[in-house]
């Protein structure tokens, strides 16, 4: 019988985020030290999934560290920042705050590429998918692999 309701959404998002980490090139100064995946969200679901399954794994020679932020002021140098839907209203401040950095901002709210996200989770029908903004990636000096753009639901050139 039904063993329990399974959190398929968070599992998929965490796995997407891990794949983003492997398919994007960060600038030289981001290729040393730990590989930081930050989560700014009220819900712990995606954070828990990342922390349980990916903490201590590697991206190249960098060890993955997963951080949960209670507020945006805690965010310093992160390779990836996942902003949960319930914290989406902070994106404008965050894009300003992270302007000089190379943080891949990942959101999950419709229309958020236009607000500064590099990757935004969207639905393709009822399937989890993602869209990419190449201009935003360029702003943060991020190089996105062709494979990632070719599988995207939408790519803003």
């Amino acid at each position, binding site marked *: 019988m039904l063993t329990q309701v399974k959190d398929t959404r968070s599992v998929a998002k965490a796995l997407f985020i891990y794949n983003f980490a492997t398919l994007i090139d960060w600038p030289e100064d981001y290729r040393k030290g730990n590989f930081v995946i930050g989560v700014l969200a009220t819900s712990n679901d995606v954070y828990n999934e990342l922390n349980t399954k990916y903490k201590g794994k590697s991206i190249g020679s960098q060890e993955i560290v997963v951080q949960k932020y209670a507020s945006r002021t805690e965010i310093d140098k992160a390779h990836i920042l996942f902003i949960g839907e319930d914290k989406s209203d902070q994106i404008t401040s965050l894009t300003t705050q992270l302007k000089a950095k190379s943080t891949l901002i990942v959101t999950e709210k419709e229309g958020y590429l236009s607000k500064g996200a590099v990757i935004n989770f969207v639905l393709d029908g009822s*399937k989890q998918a993602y869209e990419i903004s190449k201009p935003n990636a360029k702003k943060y000096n991020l190089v996105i692999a062709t494979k990632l753009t070719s*599988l995207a639901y939408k790519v803003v050139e």
Partner: protein
Amino acid sequence: MRLIKNILFSVLLSVAGQVYAQEYTAKAHAQFQAKDYDSARVLIDYAIQTNEKYNSQTWQLRGLIYRKLESPENISYREVAIESFIQARQTDTTQIYKEKINEYLYNTIIRYYNDAVTYLNEFKYTDSEKSYLMFKARYLELIDATKNFANEDIEYYNALGGGYTKQLGQLSGKDYDIVFALAISALGKVLDADSMNYLANLNAAVMYYNRGADLIVNQDPENTSIEVLMENIATAESLFLKALPLMQKAYAINPTNIEVLEGLSGIYYSLNDIENHLVYQTQLDKINLPKFLEIYQNNPNDRENLRQLVRIYSSTLKDDAQYLKFKTILDQLGG
């Protein structure tokens, strides 16, 4: 008709006490009464090579003897018994034994059904279905060609599907795929007979949901490429979409069942339909809330229970005061 093994009554030896005019049949009958069935078999097989073969009672006795001798090692004796009763019917030209022979046949054929039930209990599902199909075929051929087996099919295939479903938990890879297909096929037969069958709809929906969800949650976190992830998401979606109408039917039949509500909540969640997910999660939480509160009374430090209360009061049954109360307790316990 409920054809369960334990209701199979012993066939009364209706030929007992009758006087056989024929020599070998009479001798066989004596051995039969003395419970020396092997000797009775030799004699009755001899009888049917003589003119005694024109006597219906000879064939009836032969059927009874072979039925007595039937065992797992001599399963073919059942068919010999059936063939003997058929011969008994053909030689009963005046049809005076018609009812009795039909009873013999019925009580012999039903053994296939009983075998099906036994095999089911022994987890020998292929053998079970083979026996069930044999029971149906023989029944239609020899007892009643117009018999409708819809009710029996529903009962039997629900049990078979349930058996396969239980087996799935111990399987993986190709074995899982094979048994999954067999379970769905069995439940499909129930739904063919009764599309609103509660159990079959629920079980099939749960199977599709679990398979889709497992496909997502059991992915190798490090070695699942983005292509594979997206393929898995698409496959899981198709499974969730198969589960949904089945679970909706189960809900139409039993809207307060916790498993059905969990199922709909989970399916909609996995289909990223949060609006509908919350509809069913709210119904579920309304049912479960008193239980969570009782657990809290008995064990205020149960963190998982506190998480549920925090979730409920912050999402489905919003109550700021209660949310803050349980959130504070949970935070004090370390979250």
